[in-house]
């Protein structure tokens, strides 16, 4: 072990400890810097992960940033994040407005993943959860103005399941109807076709990461099916 570095032979314990402490301090400084850089780069609210991606924290443990999913994507939807992209350096993501996910039946990106960062147990692409579409600007949406745009509804790969059209009275004229696109967050895969197709300059419907788009009932809320419970309450009075 010591044959290769003669100067070390004369090293005494004090020198050894001092040198080790110095290196360890340097390594510690470098380490804090690295963690700071890594922590500063987080997934942006408009950056979507490929189908079947693990939750973000686990995804960052697992992903080796090899780009096999990107190369497997037949539509060039996926890309590896550059610096200053809204995703941590080198990880796969896509922007729905630019190129949405085409939801391939054979899910080649998930099959290509060697690390399990994309969960291989996903076999039905309609069960993917890349994000949730949210009609975020009702004021700008043409359907809310009483027009029959419906483009987001028509391009949805899960037509009438993930986005449906619900009719209501148009109080503006009081004798026309509004046809409102409504997203079912249970069904929406977050493929981004709606955001991509929205005819506005800036889309009124946007796909957001599930963690940002979805609420969660409080732990003490014991109602399993709040919809039917509230209906009973309305019809039969409150029975706690």
């Amino acid at each position, binding site marked *: 072990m010591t044959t290769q570095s003669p100067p070390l032979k004369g090293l005494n314990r004090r020198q050894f400890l001092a040198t080790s402490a110095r290196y360890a301090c340097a*390594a510690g400084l470098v380490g804090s810097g690295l963690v700071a*850089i890594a922590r500063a780069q987080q997934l942006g609210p408009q950056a979507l992960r490929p189908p079947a991606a693990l939750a973000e924290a686990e995804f960052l*443990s697992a992903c*080796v940033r090899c780009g096999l999913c990107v190369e497997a994507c037949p539509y060039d939807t996926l890309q590896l994040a*550059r610096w200053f992209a809204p995703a941590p*350096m*080198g990880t796969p993501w896509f922007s729905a407005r630019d190129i949405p996910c085409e939801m391939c039946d054979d899910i080649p990106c998930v099959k290509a993943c060697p690390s399990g960062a994309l969960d291989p147990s996903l076999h039905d692409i309609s069960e993917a959860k890349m994000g949730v579409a949210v009609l975020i600007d009702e004021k700008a949406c043409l359907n809310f103005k009483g027009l029959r745009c419906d483009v987001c509804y028509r391009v949805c790969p899960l037509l009438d399941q993930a986005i449906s059209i619900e009719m209501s009275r148009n109080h503006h004229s009081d004798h026309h109807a509004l046809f409102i696109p409504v997203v079912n967050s249970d069904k929406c895969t977050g493929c981004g076709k709606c955001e991509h197709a929205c005819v506005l300059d800036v889309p009124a419907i946007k796909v957001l990461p599930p963690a940002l788009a979805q609420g969660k009932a409080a732990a003490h809320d014991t109602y399993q099916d709040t919809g039917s419970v509230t209906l009973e309450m309305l019809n039969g009075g409150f029975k706690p």
Partner: protein
Amino acid sequence: MSHPSSRFAAAAIARLGFWKAHRFLLLRRASQLTVLTLFAMGPWAGIWLLQGNLSASLLLDTVPLADPLTTLQVLLTGHLPQFQLLLGAILIGLFYGLLGGRVFCSWVCPVNMVTDFAAWLRRRFNLPRTPELPGKFRYFMLALVLLLPMLTGFTVWEWLNPVPILYRALLFGNVTGISIIVAIFLADLLLAERLWCSHVCPTGALYGLLGKLSPVKIAAVKREACNNCMDCFSVCPERQLLKPALKGQQRLISDADCTLCGRCIDVCAAEVFQYKNRFNKEFQRFAHKAENEQ
């Protein structure tokens, strides 16, 4: 060349000819560019022989390969990757364990071309020698890179690891990552000689450890012919290993830090150095002798 007499390794070129005085350099560049081309043919030309990048890849759609350092980091975050990644890391580990660990650095790694260029510029323009830095710092870096996933739960080093960053820049157009490579180039050129590859890089440190038991080594076989011209010292990325082999008890460079680049073989007019099998009887005798004398 306008000043053939001042040309580096002029003696070797005069005695052995241009090819023999550059053969391992040229073979290494060919090897590095071949690996790069195999990866690049997919995204550039649609010919998919080697998919992915140096972090993890798939050869001919069947053989998984993976970087042992990246895979270790993933394991240390607590995530159990799919078998494909583990198998890939084992295959690569065995390959370099057998061929000599830091063969990766000198024959495959793209960053080596950048840092070799910086070293060449230093030599070409006679930049002053910089103080010797402790080469063992890289093992602290390796420990750090393996410790951080345990503390934070994510593969921190992969944000800055220049090896896949350079590949991602070339294969996936992630050009902003080039800034890291430029920083390494400038540090090697202006701050300290061989700063990155020989002092900091944890990838090289791990491959070095993997190659500790490899039979492939370089030895100063004909060291009696050495005329102290110092050409090997000028060119060697780990020059601290040369003196023991040339003047010490053991001719074999058995230290894991040797990248087996073979440049010392190239530039030596006296043909002192050769690639050798360390299990060759001749070296075992030397090794025993060295141990007995200690």
